[in-house]
């Protein structure tokens, strides 16, 4: 009792002060500490989580190449982001379409600059990890067959001309933000963007030699499962970190992220168990990632029951897309970047418009809370993102093709495996 009233008094006393400071940006050390940790968590998702997740699914002869492409995507995007990416995404808005070049090479940003309650450097780094993982996700559609030089050029162009504009529209004060589109941690910016980009790139590249005729076994489901676990761990920084503060909404985002991932793992596994008579580890790992993808745009807006529905549907939808639709249509999205990230990201963006709950995040209401217009806004943001990404990626791919004289490795090299033909290394020496 006594303690309670003491706390009450303290809050009451503190109120006028916080009100007085509300106008000026003040660094909050709790927020800053959490955001530094979140940034490190999201960083891990690319060279550890995604590299293992994808590497384990690629064939044994291309395992290292998958790692190399993931690592190089992270390194390149990190550098591009600091040189011009951050400025294009978060610089002074130009017509709602793109950021200005005022902050290239982090110009005008100092140690004491703040974004909200955290240092701008931390904010820029946090956002950088998102750019890195988005382009690395595209890989999932095209492993086993792309030239390394083409991948490098593609990464530079794609981050600059496809990722940065969309990040600006949604998070940098662009037109989608003005329109009121809700994307908490990157359903459109990251997942739909990467899924559609991957699909376009894989269609232009063509199928792998022997696709659909010869078996293409994953090199190691063990590595994939470990990668999924690291992605899951890092995703807490991705989603709960996207609140940009250590507060109740961050906690709520953490809760729904974990729940959605868990139930999606179970639903994918169950669908597979019923459909194919076996609950596979790859299915469980894929379901977890599908659930994480779907909750991403919704994380800071929805409550626990909504996260159960979002995850449940994501697991079933992901399974349906990769195990049924893909087999029927016959495109070669090698590791299902489109099936998992594109489709479940779309579901998540729609679900945000349905389940956004003003009791979680004040003023953000979806269809079920009396704001059907939100769903319409979400649909516009999905279509605009997918359309822009598709067109932008086609242009980027053809420019890349011109610059690197083709996109695909030689036939012999593809059959021999890219680890040996490109890198001159082997992933394992097993005797």
């Amino acid at each position, binding site marked *: 009792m006594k303690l309670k009233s003491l706390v009450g008094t303290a809050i009451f006393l503190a109120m006028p002060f916080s009100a007085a400071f509300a106008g000026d940006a003040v660094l909050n050390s709790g927020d800053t500490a959490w955001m530094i940790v979140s940034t490190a968590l999201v960083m891990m998702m690319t060279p550890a989580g995604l590299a293992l997740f994808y590497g384990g*699914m690629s064939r044994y002869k291309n395992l290292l190449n998958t790692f190399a492409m993931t690592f190089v995507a992270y390194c390149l995007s990190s550098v591009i982001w600091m040189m011009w990416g951050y400025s294009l995404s978060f610089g002074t808005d130009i017509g709602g379409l793109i950021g200005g070049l005022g902050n290239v090479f982090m110009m005008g940003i100092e140690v004491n600059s703040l974004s909200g309650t955290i240092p701008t450097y931390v904010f820029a780094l946090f956002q950088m990890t998102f750019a890195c993982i988005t382009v690395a996700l595209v890989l999932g559609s095209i492993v086993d067959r792309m030239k390394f030089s083409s991948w490098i050029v593609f990464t530079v162009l794609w981050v600059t001309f496809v990722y940065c504009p969309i990040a600006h529209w949604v998070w940098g004060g662009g037109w989608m933000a003005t329109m009121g589109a809700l994307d908490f941690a990157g359903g459109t910016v990251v997942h739909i963007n990467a899924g559609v980009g991957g699909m376009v790139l894989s269609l232009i590249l063509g199928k792998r030699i022997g696709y659909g005729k010869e*078996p*293409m*076994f*994953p090199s190691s489901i063990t590595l994939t499962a470990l990668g999924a676990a690291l992605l899951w761990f890092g995703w807490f920084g991705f989603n709960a970190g996207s609140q940009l503060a250590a507060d109740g909404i961050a906690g709520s985002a953490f809760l729904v992220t974990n729940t959605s991932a868990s139930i999606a793992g179970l639903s994918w596994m169950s669908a*597979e168990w019923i459909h*194919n008579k*076996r609950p*596979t580890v*790859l*299915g469980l790992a*894929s379901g977890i990632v599908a659930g994480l993808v779907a909750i991403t745009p919704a994380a800071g807006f929805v409550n626990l029951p909504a996260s159960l529905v979002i995850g449940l549907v994501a697991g079933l939808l992901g399974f349906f897309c*990769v*195990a*049924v639709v*893909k*087999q029927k249509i016959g495109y070669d999205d090698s590791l*299902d970047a489109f099936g998992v990230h594109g489709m479940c990201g779309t579901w998540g963006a729609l679900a945000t418009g349905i389940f956004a709950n003003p009791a979680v995040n004040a003023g953000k209401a979806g269809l079920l809370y009396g704001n059907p217009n939100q769903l319409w806004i979400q649909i516009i943001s999905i279509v605009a993102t997918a359309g822009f990404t598709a067109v932008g990626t086609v242009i980027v791919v053809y420019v890349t093709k011109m610059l690197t004289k083709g996109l695909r490795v030689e036939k012999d090299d593809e059959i021999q495996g890219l680890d040996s033909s490109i890198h001159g290394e082997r992933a394992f020496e097993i005797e």
Partner: protein
Amino acid sequence: MKKIEAIIKPFKLDDVKEALNEIGIQGMTISEVKGYGRQKGHKEIYRGAEYVVDFIPKVKIEVVVPAEMANQVVEKIRQAANTGKLGDGKIFVFSVEEAVRVRTGEKGKDAI
């Protein structure tokens, strides 16, 4: 001399080795092989992509014995490797013309 080649389930290797040691067989050569017979292969499904795995891992044992021991050795292997299920394997018997011990140059039965 006879050479006996037995293709068996890998986990039965130790049983077979012990059974042959009991009747005085001093050495053998084994290799890991793959194949299929009536057991056939199995199916693996990765995210809906179905692959049939035709060849199942087996162990091949090769042992050369004096002709008069051949029947006994075959029977010992058969008993030790038997599980009663499909895929227990096969045993083949060949005639051997000559055997030479590399170290000493001994020939025939002395060499095995």
